[in-house]
């Protein structure tokens, strides 16, 4: 299979672009650097789509099963043992190709969009350098053929996200936000790393194809059978390994309770939020689980997978509730992202493995795909709005529909899509998720169902309050975004409308065998999900289309709950308490004190005692002749005594 040998170019181009822009950031000025970056991305874009075409339609499928193709770039980049090694390789299979398409599309759009958005920004070139860095890392992440390699790119996307969130590094809030994002994800990555070590130790390989192979799985399962002792709370140590790996994913994908960095991450430039914190990086967790899906599904009857399902479901609900009350539009979008990713996790969690059983898996991937499109779109529109209004807060907005129609229409499309209104993309994926959940567990299904309604509600709350609601007086009237921004918006809107009709299950499935799934329009589930969405929209319309007193009423009606949600259930405060009050003050400070005073003090004490001693005994040398003679004689006597005694 050497038809994909060119594939290494896909991550390579952005890398070179990053190095070039990074070293010349001082000299090359706007807009050349921007054009360069975009050109590079365009190349990547074309390559990715070509790859997708080649894979899905020409030579990907062999006797009814999609092949997993591995293109080795550097064998044995690090050899741990002869079995365990970090090989730099590229894996090509449905999900990686699918992610390739997602990343390149969104990234390209963001590049184009930023030409306008970052116009006249001092760090223009730096911005594009960072974007290239991120794109490189993200592409590397999706293409990595090796668990450890994925960890490497995992860290790299983490750092590029850090750099981009802290892009306006003179703004303290941005700095602290970037720091928070990096450290929280780093904390998750620690578990990820430990998980990797355990997987490597028990699975005897880091290579995905080897790990996911039936032989490895049966080997591990038998090991678990024979080593019951290595278990805790009835789960074997290997399940914990998988859970640790998943915790890494939770960190990146902002699952509860590691989500706290995501809202703050909105400090970064909006295109960044669109690219990293909506479409690509945050779904890395989902991608990771999908990558290792066979392991998750088969080890100990999918114990780890249940954990995934629960975490996903809860996060979906939790985020949706918070999103209901936020005032900062980017935060609303952030929480909706979290909620949607929860959805995807849920989908994976409830999924079976082969044929139609694997519906959840397929749906999760599908939702990932569609969500990338419309959520990126939402963010970009939000960016355009912020660009125009110079504020993040809803109450500063309103009635923008007539000022910026394109933004308004595209936003509407995206909002409909995310609310799951046919025929927009979101509907199909979300509906399949709910179907899968229904088959798996009614409670989870119900939560998903509820979340769907909330989603519709807060999205339209957002829409109405930005574009209708009231006629705010702006000091300098907002105008439609420049062509390059609008182009991105329109393109993504088109995608949002189109992608829903891809019969996704033909291409992506848990067991790599394409199967056929279609919507039963008469199915009560489908009807139900559409209805709940409509109710949500209706409620939003009633409360926010015009300025009404309903919102205040409802808020007061909920009382305390409202405040809790508005304050994101005080999660940040909790974390602050734990880190500062406990770790810093109760652990780190004492240690520092201990080191300075006890250990160092001990060493100094030695010196001081010696000097004191020498001061104390100086009287012996009294300077009196007869004392000396006395000591002399007594010395003689003493020695004689000793000898006599010991003899």
């Amino acid at each position, binding site marked *: 299979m050497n038809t994909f040998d060119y594939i290494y170019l896909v991550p390579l181009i952005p890398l070179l672009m990053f190095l070039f822009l990074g070293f010349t950031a001082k000299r090359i000025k706007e807009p050349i650097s921007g054009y360069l970056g975009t050109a590079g991305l365009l190349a990547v874009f074309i390559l990715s789509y070509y790859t997708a075409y080649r894979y899905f339609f020409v030579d990907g499928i062999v006797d009814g099963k999609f092949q997993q193709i591995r293109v080795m770039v550097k064998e044995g*980049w690090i050899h*741990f043992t002869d079995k365990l090694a970090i090989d730099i390789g590229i894996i090509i299979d449905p999900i990686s190709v699918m992610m390739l398409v997602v990343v390149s599309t969104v990234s390209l759009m963001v590049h184009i969009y930023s030409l306008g958005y970052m116009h006249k920004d001092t760090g223009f070139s730096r911005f594009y350098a960072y974007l290239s860095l991120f794109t490189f890392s993200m592409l590397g992440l999706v293409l990595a053929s090796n668990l450890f390699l994925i960890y*490497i790119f995992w860290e*790299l996307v983490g*750092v590029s996200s850090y750099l981009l969130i802290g892009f306006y590094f003179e703004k303290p809030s941005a700095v602290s936000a970037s720091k928070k994002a990096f450290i929280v994800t780093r904390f998750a990555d620690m578990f990820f790393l430990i998980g990797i070590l355990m997987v490597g*130790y028990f699975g005897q390989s880091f290579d995905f194809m080897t790990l996911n192979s039936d032989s490895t799985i049966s080997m591990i399962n038998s090991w678990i059978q024979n080593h019951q002792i290595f278990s805790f709370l009835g789960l074997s140590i290997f399940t914990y390994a998988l859970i640790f790996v998943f915790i890494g994913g939770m960190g990146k994908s902002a699952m509860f309770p590691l989500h706290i960095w995501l809202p703050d991450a909105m400090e970064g430039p909006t295109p960044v939020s669109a690219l990293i914190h909506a479409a690509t990086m945050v779904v890395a967790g989902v991608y990771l689980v999908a990558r290792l899906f066979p392991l998750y599904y088969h080890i100990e009857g999918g114990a780890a997978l249940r954990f995934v399902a629960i975490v996903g479901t809860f996060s979906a609900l939790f985020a949706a509730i918070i999103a209901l009350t936020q005032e900062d539009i980017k935060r609303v979008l952030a929480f909706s992202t979290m909620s949607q990713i929860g959805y995807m996790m849920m989908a994976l969690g409830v999924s079976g493995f082969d044929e139609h059983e694997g519906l959840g898996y397929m749906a999760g991937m599908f939702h990932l795909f569609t969500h990338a499109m419309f959520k990126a779109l939402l963010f970009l529109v939000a960016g355009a709005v912020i660009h125009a209004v110079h504020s993040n807060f809803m109450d500063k907005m309103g009635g923008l529909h007539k000022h910026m129609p394109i933004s308004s229409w595209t936003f509407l499309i995206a909002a409909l899509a995310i609310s799951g209104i046919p025929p927009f993309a979101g509907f199909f994926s979300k509906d399949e998720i709910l179907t899968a959940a229904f088959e798996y567990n009614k409670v989870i299904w119900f939560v998903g169902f509820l979340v769907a309604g909330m989603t519709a509600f807060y999205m339209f709350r957002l829409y109405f309050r930005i574009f209708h609601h009231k006629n705010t007086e702006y000091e300098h009237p907002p105008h439609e975004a420049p062509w390059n921004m609008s182009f991105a918006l329109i393109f993504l809107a088109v995608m949002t409308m189109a992608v829903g009709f891809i019969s996704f299950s033909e291409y992506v499935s848990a067991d790599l065998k394409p199967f056929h799934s279609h919507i039963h329009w008469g199915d009560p589930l489908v009807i139900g999900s559409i209805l709940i969405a409509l109710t949500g929209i209706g409620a939003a319309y009633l409360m926010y289309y015009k300025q009404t007193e309903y919102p205040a009423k409802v808020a007061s009606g909920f009382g305390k709950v409202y405040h809790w949600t508005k304050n994101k259930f005080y999660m940040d405060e909790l974390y602050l308490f734990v880190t500062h009050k406990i770790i810093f003050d109760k652990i780190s400070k004492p*240690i*520092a004190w201990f080191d300075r005073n006890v*250990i160092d003090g001990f060493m100094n004490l030695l010196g001081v005692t010696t000097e004191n001693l020498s001061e104390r005994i100086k009287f012996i040398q009294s300077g009196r002749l007869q004392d000396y003679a006395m000591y002399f004689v007594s010395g003689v006597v003493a020695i004689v005594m000793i000898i006599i005694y010991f003899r």
Partner: protein
Amino acid sequence: MDILTLFIVVPVLTVIVLLFVNKLEKARLIALAGMIIQLIMSINLINEYMKARAAGDHAIMLFERNVPWYSDFNANYHIGVDGVSVLMILLTTLIVIAGIFVSWKIDYMPKEFFISLIVLASGVYGFFISLDLFTMFVFYEIAVIPMYLLIGIWGSGPREYAAMKLTLMLMGASALLLVSLFGIYYYSGTNGMEPTFDLMELANRKMDFAAQKIFYPLAFIGFGTIGALFPFHTWSPDGHASAPTAVSMLHAGVLMKLGGYGIFRFIMFLMPEGALFWQDFFLILAVTGVTYGAMAAIQQTDLKYINAYSSVSHLGLVLFALLMINKTAWNGAMLQSLSHGFITALFFALIGMIYGRTHVRDITKMTGMMRIVPFLGVAYVIAALANLGLPGFSGFVAEMNIFMGGFLNNDLYKQAMTVFAVSSIVVTAVYMLRLVGRMLYGPVTTVYTNLPKAFWYEKVAIGILVLFITLIGTLPFWWLQFIQESVDNFIKPLVH
């Protein structure tokens, strides 16, 4: 004159030449010239080495030379190199060169400064090439003692106190080492054989287990002290804080590596049973050092203290890896020695440069340096990222080897210890980013707005170090090929 002895002769000649000049301009040029020669020789050495290996020379040590010195003590001038020492020599050379560039404008007693610096370096070279315990010890002490003058004369803050403390603690440690050297020596003399100091000879003789139990910890602590083993690390924060830039670089970059190297090359190799006997105990110390150093670093506000503690943490990893007796971990240990050498040298270089501009080392007192001195700022961010183990930089590959190696031990205790050590990567991230956020980012401190940008010589120094940090980080296999074969030879006595 063989290829290795030159590494000692050239510095000595440089020193002799330096004795006859007085001006700074001349002195620094001569010092630089001498070290450039060293660099050429180091590269040539690597080249020769690879040739020899390619030619299928699988001797444990290459380019050996054995000249009887104190023949009635069987103390010989026995030298030779293997992969690790070759790399260590390269490291030393590069860091000394960087150090010379950093102290390009040193004004007070320049000649003496460069002399002591190069004397120190020559001691280090000798240590890395010597295969005889006696020779090794001589060079070790030669390497340690110039620190007193370097810190005491050119240092800052409580320099006299710091210099004295450092010297006494290191000398005390070397005293322990000395005792155990005698132990090794005389126990090799049992059953009729002449006692010997020769490493290769000693390797063939089996040391009495009872004796190993006594002398191994002495030696381990002796080397551990300079390798910042947990309770004996306390000389390093003060020492680093007071030392002049180039000295901190050389000290943290190279001198502290002597510890791990010595344990790897001499102690564990000669006293394997002792090593296994004491393994678990020292493992606790090492792991404590790892997390403890990182935790202590969080609280510091002085740049140099932050780094000193971070060094405690990262060198703790070296000892930790050495104690996880298996090949992967040992590869990691040696790689970490190199990596930490470059990274920490880069750190101290930058600290020196920033301090030279602002005359402040307290991170709470300066913000927004990124805008004022962008080059240094970017370099500092790179250093920080490398230090917290970002892929693509040297720290990552080293630590991954260490953790993997630690976890590969089929022993729950060691795996738990590994998990413990892994936790340090988070803490490292915390203090590193805290530092970057406080000092480099944020609004510009107006006092410092018109500070000079980086000078060419500073850029050269930084460039060298960053280059090698990335080289290790991106091409680990090239470096590991040197380390692996030497590790394979030296771990043999310990693994059955």
